[in-house]
């Protein structure tokens, strides 16, 4: 059975979010609509991953996240037409893949694991929830993965591997796509390819939320931007929010811009974010 459960909107109103027992994030309040692509920008440890993990039901929070669907879905006990449904309730009621897909930070995976690209992508397939016919082929084509399918994951380049991770995420075909630093280890060509693929997803009414360090990637990919440093610094249209003032407020005066292939990168160390 394929579900056409599209999100009409997503309201995120977090009081506090917890990583282990520590408060990693507080006072977050923004709303997204169908087709939005949101970039979350902030230094390491600013709570980018925490925000994504709260949406993925992997961390505890106080406050509310609620969703509104564009099609009334009678299979949901809690849902009524034009009513907001609590995200935590949805996570309890529905298989996760019908709500969101998630691409974790790649630092958490063993890149020498004996897997082929095909096996990596197939992790997303589930016999009880078969993907729409032709979806896999379409994703493989868009991300140029067909020739790499039988290669081991430690035989391909960082960018090729990242494309496979993105393919695995898209194969789940969920209405909300969560990507934790998807631009890690990819070059500008691949960034543009990712941006194009995500815009196609948004054209289908999906909502994408991605975290990054890279302003350029934010600007070519997203229509909305959230600046984050343990709390919400600013939220709005990418074209207006990516300004000097917000960057300074988020990263502090030590912020360094490096112009590399007309590319603005925020230098903020290499440790993992929380």
């Amino acid at each position, binding site marked *: 059975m394929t579900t056409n459960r599209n999100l009409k909107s997503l309201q995120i109103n977090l009081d506090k979010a917890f990583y282990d027992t520590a408060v990693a994030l507080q006072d977050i309040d923004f709303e997204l609509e169908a087709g939005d692509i949101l970039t979350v920008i902030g230094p390491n440890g600013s709570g980018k991953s925490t925000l994504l993990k709260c949406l993925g039901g992997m961390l505890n929070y106080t406050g509310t996240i609620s969703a509104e669907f564009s099609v009334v879905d009678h299979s949901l006990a809690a849902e009524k037409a034009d009513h907001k449904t609590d995200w935590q309730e949805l996570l309890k009621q529905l298989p996760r*893949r019908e709500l969101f897909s*998630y691409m974790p*930070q790649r630092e958490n*995976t063993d890149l020498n694991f004996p897997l082929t690209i095909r096996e990596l992508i197939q*992790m997303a397939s589930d016999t009880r929830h078969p993907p729409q016919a032709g979806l896999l082929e379409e994703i493989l084509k868009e991300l140029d993965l067909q020739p790499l399918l039988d290669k081991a994951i430690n035989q391909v380049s960082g960018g090729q591997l990242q494309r496979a991770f993105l393919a695995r995420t898209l194969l789940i075909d969920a209405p909300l796509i969560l990507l934790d630093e998807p631009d890690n280890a990819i070059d500008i060509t691949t960034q543009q390819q990712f941006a194009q693929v995500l815009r196609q997803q948004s054209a289908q009414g999906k909502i994408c939320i991605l975290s990054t360090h890279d302003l350029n990637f934010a600007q070519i990919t997203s229509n909305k931007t959230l600046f984050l440093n343990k709390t919400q610094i600013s939220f709005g249209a990418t074209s207006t929010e990516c300004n000097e003032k917000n960057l300074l407020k988020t990263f502090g005066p030590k912020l360094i811009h490096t112009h590399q292939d007309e590319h603005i990168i925020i230098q903020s160390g290499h440790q993992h974010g929380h």
Partner: protein
Amino acid sequence: MGINILFEPLQYSFMQRAIIELILIGSLTSIIGVFLVLRNLAFLGEALSHGVFPGIILSFLLKVNLLVGAVVSGIITVIGISLISRDRKTSANTATGILFTTMLALGIVLISTVRNYKADLTSLLLGDILAVTWNDIALTLIVSVIVIATLRLLWKKLIIVSFDPSFASSIGINVARLDMILYFLISLSIVVAIPAVGNLLVVALSIIPAATARLSTNRIGPMVILSVIYGTLISVIALYLTYYLQVATGATIVLLQAGWFLVVFSLKRLGKSA
């Protein structure tokens, strides 16, 4: 001489039993070893092998099935490790080190309550494949069926959890439950191998064949097959050696496994530098 070298020992029923038992535990432990190696769980495997020790002794003293005591004692070890490592000042490695030495000590104290315990202790620590009974073989067979059937059923999920626990949790896999099932299967496999190769060396039978197999392939299927071939074939060769040379079987198996690892390791290094 000649072909008789192979057939002469087979006229003894203790040798027939030893070969059957070695093929069974060799297959079982080397399949489990694939997970120990891929998840860097060698130290946890070591801890579990000693963690089950007091349970085995207690079952022996109370005259109950040794599997029951061993599994309970193994689970106590795993829970103990996870509780102690919750305090950030004691890492998982430190917790593991504390738990397995404590459990080993507890086992030794328990068995020392028996008069003339040294013979029993020696056979438990070092094992005696030539003393294996048909009952032992039947137990190994039952455990093999349980472990392999469970692995087959949960294979894909276990691979996903091993490679990428965050993604696993994002598609609704209960990572903690699956980890507990894996530890349970490791404990079971270790327990049935102890009478044959002894508590001190049993983990080698898991780790070394899988590590050797990992060196020779980048694919998980072939890794499992190679691991089983090394785990059984080399163990049986070692058994023949000990028959003719009159040396300790368990230790000879481990030495031969290590020798084969060294051969594959060196060939691979030479191949790389050539």
